[in-house]
């Protein structure tokens, strides 16, 4: 075990905060910086986030050893003993190599002394400079001295050095003398660190640059970021939805998707990956406030596990969806806008809207943050492309683990603790269920930090579905993971085995692992990572036909010499085949990219064949969009269909016919197919069994459910049990690897210190008073209580979060929240 590492994390949005907390919680020191005066990033502007329309950001705060951080709403800021936050700071230079970087930081003064400013706001009234407010994406104005976030605490104001004209008016009115003006005050500082994590986020597209849809010209055309502030009680309209032009309530609202994304003319051959959900959320919230929303879209990219259900809910509560990209927009007399669009060829509709919201995403040409290429500099996924919250956090944790691997794991110093808290012994061993990519990545990460790992795998080989994987490069990557795991001394591999009995408390679990002869060891471990994977769905017997197969099988078959030489006049892909509906109401992520990749392969051998796609929404988020563009360039034909009238497959002895309806032609179409690929999706494996064994939640479809869909993506509801990969949701290989590492990071917090520190405010039992009624057991949201052997409840001290639900329900005060110190 080595000394604590020291890291610079640039960007204090949620990715930066996640990465910092990960490192801080595993005993490292972090300098977290941001060019803004406050932490929080874009989330400061977003009160409620998809896919549940709630907040819950605070749930990313440390849950173990909670006393190291301050415990309040993260909109007020984030404080951890091991994290130094430097506002108004940026990186100037990075020198040296990994493990030994020299980082030159430059800070500038906000000119307002946080200890003196009481947030009274007198200065705001006198400052003569007004400029568009970044936070509200120019929806409202702010002064050169301003409140940097709606909630930030201390309630200090800040001066924006770029717009301040040094007139001194604010200084005159300030009663506490908090303001120091004068020439810009800058300071440079050198930090010697192990690694740097860039978490600065992406740049958003500015529709004004391309003067799209009259943005900048018409006040009632705003960006989705500005609309977010309109929804907020702390925003410029106090949560009312109004037309900026005249302040009249906005009833009819249009969202236009893919503004600045999926637009080759702008050089944007990417999907921003989150705007569809963002718009769905905004539209949903606007309905709560009485507006009538319409979303104009090309594909509804609801590719996350619960996103399709989210879309279904929104549509069933009255959201209107129109598939087309509106072509123009004009101001209308008497306020509002006239939007022209053409949903089917030849039909042009003009419709009035009070407000038009442009769904903007990643700016075209975004190359990632500065210093990205330097050795020892790691970049979070959320800084390369726009990601939803859970993906951002998974990537941040994965990156923070890679950073920590450079320095090795420290054990927290025993001495120098300000609080003499009680300790709980934990086992420095992690059980990993499943030897697919997610499980292997988790195992290798932990073993790399000196934690011993036991992999339990049901097959007699590692690598999961590697043989099913259609992409050769991906197959090779998985094989490499297998090789690495097999030669790692710290990884014990139990093949043809399964976990059978599970007991114990956080940090001290026992799992009985059985092999096929029903024999096997009882493993004592501190944490468990469930990475049991899944597989492609098998086609029903009624579809067994030599010419019909899943898109995955088809992709592999295209390499067969036999197929290469065959005449292929027509290939038909049916995407979302019995998925994203009914029993399998989720997107499997991989069918679209796989099928689109097949197009290139087909073209290389069969330049003339017809390639037809029946699809509902092509799901190529992020840079996968390129595959879609390429497939169209290569002449693939895309025919959309509705769930209620799917294309029909007619199987005959020698041939297969696909019948459907082409809305663009307005007529029935029929194809005699030489090969049919069905995008029939993936499914989780043993979710229900594992959920039962480990006492965690599972959804109807068999995916393990995380503690929080946004803020705790790889935690199960029980501390010490983590979930990742296809067992949790459909993922790509990269994502599975990231999730594995993120799960490892979460496990690491628990097992890196064999003497885990208890938080001061934890529930205790007074055993003589407990009647074992079990009320507390039912109400505890963290599974922290269990019937003890001595006729009273007991508390799992590392799982308890001190919520007090047990105290409130225990009629007898047998359960008490003991707060030591403080």
């Amino acid at each position, binding site marked *: 075990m080595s000394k604590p590492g020291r890291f610079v994390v640039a960007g204090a949005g949620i990715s930066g905060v996640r990465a910092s907390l990960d490192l801080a919680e595993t005993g490292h020191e972090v300098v977290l910086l941001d060019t803004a005066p406050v932490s929080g990033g874009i989330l400061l502007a977003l009160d409620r986030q998809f896919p549940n329309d709630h907040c819950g950001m605070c749930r990313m705060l440390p849950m173990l050893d909670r006393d190291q951080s301050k415990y*309040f*709403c993260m909109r007020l800021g984030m404080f951890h003993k091991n994290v130094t936050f430097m506002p108004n700071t940026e990186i100037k230079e990075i020198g040296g190599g990994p493990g030994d970087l020299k980082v030159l930081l430059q800070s500038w003064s906000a000119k307002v002394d946080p200890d003196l400013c009481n947030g009274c706001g007198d200065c705001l009234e006198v400052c003569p400079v007004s400029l568009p407010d970044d936070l509200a994406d120019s929806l409202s104005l702010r002064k050169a001295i301003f409140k940097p976030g*709606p909630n930030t*605490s201390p309630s200090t104001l800040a001066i924006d050095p770029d717009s301040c004209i040094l007139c001194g008016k604010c200084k005159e009115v300030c009663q506490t003398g908090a303001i120091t003006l004068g020439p810009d005050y800058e300071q440079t500082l050198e930090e010697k660190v192990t690694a740097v994590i860039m978490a600065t986020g992406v740049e958003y597209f500015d529709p004004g640059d391309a003067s799209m849809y009259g943005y900048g010209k018409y006040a009632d055309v705003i960006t989705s970021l500005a609309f977010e502030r309109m929804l907020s009680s*702390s925003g410029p309209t106090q949560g009312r939805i109004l037309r900026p032009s005249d302040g009249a309530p906005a009833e009819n609202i249009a969202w236009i998707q893919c503004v600045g994304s999926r637009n080759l003319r702008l050089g944007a051959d990417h999907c921003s990956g989150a705007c569809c959900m963002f718009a769905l959320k905004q539209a949903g919230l606007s309905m709560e406030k009485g507006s009538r929303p319409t979303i104009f879209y090309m594909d509804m990219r609801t590719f996350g596990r619960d996103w399709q259900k989210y879309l279904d809910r929104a549509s069933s509560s009255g959201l209107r969806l129109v598939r087309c990209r509106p072509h123009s927009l004009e101001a209308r007399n008497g306020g509002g806008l006239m939007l022209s669009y053409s949903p089917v060829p030849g039909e042009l509709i003009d419709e009035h809207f009070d407000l038009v919201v442009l769904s903007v995403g990643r700016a075209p040409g975004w190359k990632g943050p500065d210093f990205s290429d330097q050795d020892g500099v790691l970049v979070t996924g959320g800084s390369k492309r726009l990601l939803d919250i859970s993906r951002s956090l998974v990537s941040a944790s994965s990156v923070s683990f890679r950073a920590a691997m450079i320095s090795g794991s420290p054990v927290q110093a025993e001495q120098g603790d300000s609080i003499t808290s009680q300790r709980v012994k934990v086992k420095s061993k992690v059980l990993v269920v499943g030897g697919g990519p997610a499980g292997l990545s988790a195992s290798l990460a932990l073993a790399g930090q000196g934690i011993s790992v036991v992999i339990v795998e049901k097959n007699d080989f590692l690598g999961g579905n590697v043989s099913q994987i259609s992409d050769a490069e991906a197959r090779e990557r998985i094989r490499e993971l297998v090789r690495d795991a097999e030669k790692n001394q710290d990884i014990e591999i139990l093949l043809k085995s399964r976990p059978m009995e599970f007991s114990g408390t956080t940090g001290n679990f026992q799992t009985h692992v059985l092999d096929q002869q029903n024999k096997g060891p009882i493993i004592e471990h501190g944490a468990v990572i469930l990475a049991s994977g899944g597989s492609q769905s098998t086609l029903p017997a009624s579809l067994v036909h030599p010419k019909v197969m899943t898109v995955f099988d088809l992709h592999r078959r295209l390499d067969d010499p036999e197929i290469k030489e065959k005449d292929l006049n027509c290939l038909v892909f049916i995407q979302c085949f019995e998925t994203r509906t009914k029993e399998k109401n989720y997107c499997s992520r991989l069918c679209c990219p796989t099928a689109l990749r097949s197009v290139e392969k087909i073209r290389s051998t069969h330049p003339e064949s017809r390639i037809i796609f029946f699809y509902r929404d092509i799901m190529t988020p992020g840079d996968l969009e390129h595959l879609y563009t390429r497939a169209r360039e290569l002449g693939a034909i895309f025919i959309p269909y509705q769930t209620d009238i799917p294309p029909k497959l007619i199987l005959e002895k020698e041939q297969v016919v696909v019948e459907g309806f082409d809305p663009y032609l307005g007529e029935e179409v029929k194809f005699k197919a030489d090969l049919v690929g069905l995008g029939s999706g993936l499914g989780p494996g043993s979710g229900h069994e594992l959920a039962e064994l480990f006492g965690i939640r599972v959804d109807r479809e068999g995916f393990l459910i995380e503690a929080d869909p946004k803020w705790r993506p790889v935690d199960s509801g029980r501390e010490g049990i983590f979930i990742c990969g296809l067992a949790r949701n459909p993922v790509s290989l990269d994502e599975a690897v990231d999730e594995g590492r993120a799960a490892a990071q979460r496990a690491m917090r628990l097992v890196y210190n064999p003497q885990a520190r208890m938080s001061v405010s934890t529930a205790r039992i007074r055993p003589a008073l407990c009647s074992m009624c079990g009320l507390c057991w039912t*109400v505890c949201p963290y599974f922290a209580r269990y019937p003890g052997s001595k006729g009273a409840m007991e508390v799992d001290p590392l799982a308890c979060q001190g*919520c*007090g639900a047990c105290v*409130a329900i225990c009629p007898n005060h047998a359960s008490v929240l003991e707060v030591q110190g403080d």
Partner: protein
Amino acid sequence: MEQTTQQTDLVKTEQTDFDKEFHPNIVALVCNWCTYTAADLAGVTRLKYPAEIRMIRLMCTGMIDPRFIVESFLRGADGVFIGGCHPGDCHYINGNLKARLRIGGLKALLQGMGIEPQRLALHWIGASEGTEFQKQVKDFVEGIRELGPSGFGVYDSI
């Protein structure tokens, strides 16, 4: 901000006609996460709210023992205001839903003891809803002012 920020920081005084009116005794129980943040926001944005409230910060509305509320009334409170996170936002997952059930039962009980239901209020107030916090507290205090003293303290004479 220190975690121990005193409740008194948050209490802003409404000076008008202060002494002529009935000054109800009001306990406000707010959760540490959302509602406290909203109260703090109301405070820093200088949204004034009545001075009568005594704000007590709890980690979560789910930790409120209804006995505590009964006791407050017995000891002379004229109203008890509870503020927590919106359903789904509770830091502790569903403490607020537990609170809602128990406060529902308690309200029936207090009503049976002659306490007007308006004297016990439960509101969901999100972190950014400073204005909402101010409005709810103001309305609540106004309502209690109209109702007059609860007189429930008499019950405590045995």
